[in-house]
Every structure is written in structure tokens, then in C-alpha cells.
């Protein structure tokens, strides 16, 4: 590590949960929300991305918003590991509501029960939704 000539820059690290509970297509808010998520990672914060409720459908493969001339957000989800965002979770109960299984998801996400998610949420500093 090169410390010579470098100011000791101490950035506070917070645990931030980003909750996606609706689709990412159809309006630009999902796209803009992903920008915040990536930015949090670029600021070296502890980032957790949570899909729950209707938002589990945002993980479906084969979404084709191009047919409406909308930007496809699915490839953007693939940037999460580029910025070292690996803590991606999806609520088990919401998956069951829509009868989804893990192999129907477009990206790697850990399936976690509602009660275990709640335990993790309680230790978060800030929660974001859109």
C-alpha cells in the first residue's frame, strides 16, 4: 500500500439496503435507482440489493423492453459484480407468490426468508426504495 504522499482519507462505511419491490421496466425510475446502487458501491459502502414483492419479477430472464423502445435494464444488473456488489438477495416468500424458482432468475441471487431478511434489515443504517 502506498501511504507516502497520500492523505489519510477515512470514509465512513455504512450498510445500505436497496429494496426493489417493483419492476425495473416501464419507467425510468428503476434505471435511475440502479445508478444510486452502483454509486454507493463506488463510495465503498456496504451495499445489499434486495428483491421482494412484485420486484422479484424484475429478475425474470427474457424481458424484452426493446419492443417498446425502452432501455433494457437486465444487462445493467450484470454490472453489479463489476462494482463488487455481491450481496444480492431475493425474498423466498415473494418467489413463492409468483411460483418462481432460482433457475428462472437472470442473475445470481441468494433466496432468503422474510424473517432472516428482517434480521439483516434491522442492522442496516439506511434503506432505499423507489
Amino acid at each position: 500500500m502506498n501511504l507516502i504522499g497520500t492523505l489519510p482519507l477515512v470514509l465512513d462505511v455504512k450498510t445500505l439496503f436497496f429494496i426493489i419491490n417493483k419492476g425495473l421496466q416501464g419507467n425510468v425510475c428503476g434505471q435511475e435507482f440502479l445508478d444510486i446502487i452502483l454509486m454507493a458501491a463506488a463510495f465503498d459502502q456496504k451495499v445489499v440489493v434486495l428483491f421482494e414483492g412484485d420486484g422479484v419479477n424484475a429478475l425474470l430472464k427474457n424481458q424484452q423492453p426493446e419492443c417498446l423502445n425502452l432501455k433494457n435494464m437486465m444487462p445493467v444488473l450484470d454490472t453489479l459484480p463489476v462494482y463488487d456488489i455481491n450481496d444480492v438477495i431475493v425474498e423466498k416468500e415473494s418467489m413463492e407468490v409468483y411460483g418462481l424458482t432460482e433457475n428462472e432468475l437472470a442473475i445470481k441471487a441468494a433466496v432468503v426468508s422474510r424473517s432472516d431478511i428482517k434480521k439483516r434489515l434491522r442492522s442496516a443504517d439506511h434503506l432505499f426504495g423507489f
Partner: protein
Amino acid sequence: MLAELARDEDGFLINRNQWSEGVAEAMALEDGLTLTASHWDIIYFMQAYYDEFNHQPNARLFARAIKKKLGAEKGASIYLYKLFPDGPLKYANKYAGLPIPPSCI
């Protein structure tokens, strides 16, 4: 060569299909810059990133992504600014034939 291309007020290509390495070199030359192998590393990286992720990073993410892919040295701001003195994000996108990022207008 550049005169017949459709470009916006910052000289960015409107239609990426018109991009070629020659066009990139001509656009850079117009800005007073001669592209070297180090520039091309970044330009090709931008194109590959855009094609894979359908996404344009902002300046901070851009440096982050380069660091991840090409190593810490090339993702360093000082290095990137040496290559593109008027703004690495803007000019790497420009010579790659990609749209102008919102923060660069």
C-alpha cells in the same frame, strides 16, 4: 472524413454504425490528440463495457470499472487524465463512438 458524419454539438457521433478506428483518430486529431496504444486500451474497454452491459458509467464508476478490468494503474485518475486531459469519461466515450454521458454535456 469527419465532415460527412452526423455529429452532435460536442462532436459525438449520432450513429455508432459510422464509427471506425479511422473516425476515432480523426475526431481525436480534431481535438489535438494523437491516439496511442494506451488510449486504445481505454476506448476498446468502453465499447466492450457498453456492448455487454447496455450502460454508461459516470466518472467514478468508469474509473472503478477500468481498475477492475485493466488494473489499478490504468484506473487511476492521474493516468486517465494524462491520456485524456480534457476529461477521460467524455473523450473516451467520444472516440469510442458512444453517446455523451449526461454529466459531460
